[in-house]
């Protein structure tokens, strides 16, 4: 008994060693391209590191973090990003759920609807930004032309500080809503049919069925969809870079773009790193919650 148990651990150990050996190239690569930059950014955030004097000579501790927290523009960007994220996630969810509910009842040509819906999702955000920038051009864009046809005055979609953020929100919804639709539709079509029949006999109206059966049964799918979309929305960068460059003024200056500007326009890598670490903390917290929630479902 003891001998065999001993032999087993030996084999186990050998297996484990072999496993590490096989995994080491990818682990090394992961360390190199993900963990190392993160640690490097953290290390940089603790120093006065600028692109004018790129060295770690001056250790500043938490000074960069305090500076970032006290920076009105950084706080503005955080607030703007929060507003954008809440707006796009909520609107995309409402629109997506509505379309998913409708599509769930469709029997014919489902594949065609899917194909149409998936088109925006397959496009690169840079392309999406470019196309919409052209569509929304104040003088040459097709959107303003169509508005003029029905007698509506041209709108300065990307040039007005009040409208620009809503334009970005609208384009993001156009681009990402199909993601919501596809996920929610998958959830809806996986719901069991029988409880609905039982509810019909029990006397539930379609609205009662929706609130008392569909929504509770869809809860896990809804939460996972919302969280995934939330995490992606926080990182929005390419759309802003192409469409507004944070402008006009700082009216669409989202956090990712603001960090980019701090690092490569203001050349202050140390402070930008501190901001990145703060953003990483926020996203990490969301991810941990998502992971925990998904684990709790199984």
């Amino acid at each position, binding site marked *: 008994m003891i001998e065999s148990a001993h032999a087993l651990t030996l084999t186990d150990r050998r297996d484990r060693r072999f496993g590490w050996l096989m995994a080491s190239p990818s682990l090394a690569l992961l360390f190199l391209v993900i963990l190392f930059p993160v640690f490097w950014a953290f290390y940089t955030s603790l120093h006065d590191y600028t692109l004018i004097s790129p060295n770690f000579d001056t250790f500043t501790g938490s000074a960069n973090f305090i500076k970032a927290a006290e920076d009105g523009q950084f706080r503005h960007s955080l607030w703007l990003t929060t507003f954008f994220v809440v707006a796009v996630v909520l609107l995309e969810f409402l629109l997506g759920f509505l379309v998913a509910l409708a599509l769930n009842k469709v029997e014919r040509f489902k594949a065609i609807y899917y194909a149409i819906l998936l088109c925006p999702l397959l496009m690169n955000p840079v392309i999406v930004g470019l196309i919409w920038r052209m569509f929304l051009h104040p003088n040459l864009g097709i959107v303003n032309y169509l508005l003029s046809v029905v007698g509506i005055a041209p709108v300065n979609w990307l040039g007005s500080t009040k409208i620009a953020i809503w334009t970005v929100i609208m384009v993001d919804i156009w681009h990402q809503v199909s993601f919501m639709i596809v996920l929610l539709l998958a959830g809806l079509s996986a719901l*069991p049919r*029988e*409880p609905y029949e*039982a509810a019909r*006999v029990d006397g539930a109206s379609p609205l009662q069925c929706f609130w*008392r059966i569909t929504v509770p*049964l869809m809860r896990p799918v809804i939460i996972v969809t919302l969280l995934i979309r939330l995490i992606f929305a926080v990182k929005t960068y390419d759309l802003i870079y192409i469409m507004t460059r944070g402008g006009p003024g700082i009216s669409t200056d989202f956090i990712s773009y603001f960090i980019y500007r701090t690092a490569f326009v203001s050349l202050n890598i140390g402070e930008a790193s501190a901001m990145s670490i703060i953003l990483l903390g926020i996203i990490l917290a969301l991810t941990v919650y998502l992971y925990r929630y998904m684990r709790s479902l199984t």
Partner: protein
Amino acid sequence: MADIVLDRVSKIYPNGVPAVREVSLDIKDGEFMIFLGPSGCGKSTTLRMIAGLESISAGQLSIGGERMNDVDPADRNIAIVFQNYALYPHMSVAGNLGFGLQLRHVPKAEIDRRIKDIATMLGITELLSRKPAQLSGGQRQRVALGRALVRDPKAFLLDEPLSNLDAKLRASMRTELIKLHQKLGTTIVHVTHDQVEAMTMGQRICIMKDGEIVQVGAPMEVYRNPANTFVAGFLASPPMNLVSGRLEHDQAGLAAVAGTARFVLPPALRDGYAAQSGNAVTLGLRPEDFHLSRGNVKLSQAVPVATVATEVLGPEVILVCELGGNGGPEVMVRCPRDFSASPGQPLTLHYDLSQIHLFDKTTGKVLSRPSLI
């Protein structure tokens, strides 16, 4: 009053496939009616039409004298128990039981009282706070039944409610359902493909095939007088032996002949079947109408058989043998538990001629005959 009357009710799906064809049936108030048939025979569709979950393509359905064709399922005041129980997975057992009452705006205190009563009756009181996923198949079955009972409906529709349970649990639930019906006296329509359930539970059985009713009657009536070879071959286990043969006249009188086996019909039957003399028929011979000895069978016919195999079931032995000797058609015979025979062994059995059934060879319909005692 909850008479359920189906008058030439049909269901044709949008793709033109007829699922139920002109079904007419009168289910009496308080009756325990069984819909029996193989899968795809339209029995579940008929039940779902009664529930209102399927639209009726033609014909009329009335419950308690009122036309129900276009009435919403919720307003028919019937309850249905589904094969997969269809419990609300996100609600507790108490939530499942109370949902229908909540929707009907029954006061909370009354809902609690009814849930408690039903839970006590079904022995699920300690499960009330659990979710369906935490219950066993039998417990879910009880909850589904409770959900139907709690509403105190005019009729219960049970769509194969026992088919997902293991054999032992199925047997005990069968008894419980019978007891429940005796206690409540509510109309029950029970769909099943299990002939044991049909025989043991129902006051009447409605046997369906290919969307049509084949025969309706009390279990023993259907068992004794099957309307055609389908019913004969569907009821009881092992079912009636159906053997091809013909009616012949010889010096002993009119006889049904299958291979080398001859069954000389008793004088009382001869007149009834005389017109069919010379025709090809199907003989219906129940396994329990063969006897090892003549005993006190009044009208017996000695039949030589050759043993093929024996199946020991415990309380009895099923003898598989070739009728008339080697090479004859295979039949099953019910024998006492102490019976044994080796393969190939020739035996002489005694058949009770008063129980013989003859069916038309082409249509499969029973040939009418005068009743014998």
